[in-house]
């Protein structure tokens, strides 16, 4: 009876099961894999993708999609970097978050008020964001920041890297929002059946805009972390990150049709992607094969989920 319960729970969270399966697999093949320092390392790396994926989780649950996260990431990074060069860390961070919020709001308003499919709107803003980044930087990376800015990417508290702390803080926040607040409840309702939500008096437009603003701001947070870690902002930042984020959310059990998904699932989805990267590097698997391995894992995960 107890076993059955455990089995049932396992089926509810396939990403968690998958994560531990992959960990076991790599542990058997590499003695350098299952070490504290390597796990600290993996969590620090995953924080970048996970933070974006948290925002994407809400977007996808609401039945939408946000392809512009990578471009928002790049634009907020380079705008912040140019302010950091002038020496003001606080102002730089605030402006980065603002850029994220404004881009997110633009997405939300056009989607909600313009009644255009999120895929098309964010595809357009993805292109515009990337272009603005190139115009702003003239294709050149921006470097030379105050020492204090490095704390975000490099710092540690009680042996835990700051990016990991930020990631868990945001995880708790989004988890709280999705389980205990009106915003969370309505996100599932809109994704489940938008017309029904509207008829029961939910201000659908307003909540959609809030969701995309959150997605934009989280992309900016992620950009702040990576810029600090690399000590430079690159115009090519964030290319392809939208796909990583969507993959993490879907691996975590969300449905692209909306109405279904959890941020816990997303966290483990992102961890699966990170641990695959790390493990394949550690095992020195040929670069030519690595993409295939990742693709196969995604397919298996989604197939397993269909069983439940």
């Amino acid at each position, binding site marked *: 009876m107890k076993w059955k319960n455990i089995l049932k729970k396992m089926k509810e969270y396939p990403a968690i099961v998958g994560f531990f399966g992959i960990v076991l697999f790599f542990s058997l093949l590499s003695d350098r894999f299952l070490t504290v320092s390597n796990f600290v390392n993996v969590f620090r790396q995953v924080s970048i993708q996970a933070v974006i994926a948290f925002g994407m989780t809400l977007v996808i649950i609401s039945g939408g999609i946000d392809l512009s996260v990578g471009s928002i990431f790049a634009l907020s990074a380079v705008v912040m970097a140019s302010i950091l060069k002038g020496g003001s860390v606080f102002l730089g961070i605030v402006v980065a978050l603002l850029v994220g919020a404004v881009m997110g709001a633009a997405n939300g308003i056009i989607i909600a008020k313009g009644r255009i499919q999120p895929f098309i709107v964010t595809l357009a803003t993805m292109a515009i964001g990337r272009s603005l980044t190139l115009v702003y930087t*003239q*294709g*050149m990376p921006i470097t030379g920041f105050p020492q204090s800015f490095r704390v975000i990417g490099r710092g540690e508290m009680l042996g835990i890297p700051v990016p990991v702390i930020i990631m868990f803080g945001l995880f708790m926040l989004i988890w709280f929002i999705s389980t205990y607040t009106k915003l969370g409840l309505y996100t599932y309702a809109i994704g489940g059946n938008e017309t029904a939500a509207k008829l029961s008096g939910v201000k659908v437009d307003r909540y959609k805009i809030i969701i995309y603003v959150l997605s934009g701001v989280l992309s900016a947070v992620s950009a702040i972390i990576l810029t600090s870690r690399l000590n430079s902002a690159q115009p090519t930042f964030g290319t392809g990150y939208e796909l990583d984020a969507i993959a993490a959310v879907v691996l975590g059990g969300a449905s692209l049709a909306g109405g279904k998904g959890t941020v816990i699932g997303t966290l483990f989805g992102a961890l699966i992607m990170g641990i695959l990267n790390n493990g394949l*590097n*550690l095992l020195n698997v040929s*670069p030519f094969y690595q993409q295939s391995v990742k693709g196969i894992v995604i397919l298996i995960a989604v197939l397993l989920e269909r069983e439940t």
Partner: protein
Amino acid sequence: MKKAILVIFVLVLLVATVLGAKYKIGLSLSTLNNPFFVTLRDGAIDKAKELGIDLIVVDAQDKPSKQLNDIEDLIQQRVDLIIINPTDSDAIVTAVEEANKANIPVITVDRASNGGKVIVHIASDNVLGGMMAAKFIAEKLNGKGKVVELVGIPGTSAARDRGLGFETELKKYPGLTLVARQTANFNRAEGLVVMENLLEAYPDIDAVFAQNDEMALGAIEAIKAAGKLDKIMVVGFDAIPDAIDSVKKGEMAATIAQQPYLMGQKAVEKAFEYLKTQSIYIPVELKLVIK
């Protein structure tokens, strides 16, 4: 009256084209998202200004499909010559052939075309550069140690040639072992992550060869965080400004200099020479012949 105006208009137009008969050259770049190619473009623009050439620059954003469209557009504009910096040596062949068919001469820069008629290819020798890096590392390590290679975008000619040169030269030193070869796609953020992972797997590396400076700079951040900057030597490729700074600060051991500005200048210069004389002078290395 109407006819007279028309005649005058046509005459003015004719005079204008004859007076303004300067060469129009197209430059199709693989990407302007990388300082290397921005510098190459600047070299080309400056040279074109100096020679009084109209230069039209198009950016393929690293997409072979967009580059083909770009070049078709240039052909439509009836440019006198097209300078191409291919995104991909194979994918570019169709575009070169189309230019050939339209009787527009083609020059390639940095990366070559694997087909079609190209009057001259201007590039630094990537194989030689890779060999220089291996030789430098071997000398610094006295021919003994563990080496890691960070590979660029798999399949590109730059990654292939630099890797080939590096590995061929490395084999000459039996004391040096290449313990890992991982891709970071010519990208700084990926260089950081891959290096962090490799440091976990191989804590006792002596040297890193990165096939470009972006990856090298990312790797240096990882090595710095691990507190091993004094133990691990990093060699990059391209000599972009950030890398030169890093070398000056003593963080990067060396970078193989490519000269993108000069490449851009040279390409326009050769284009001009060809348009004026319908021939091109290609110096061939001399060879010492002994009995």
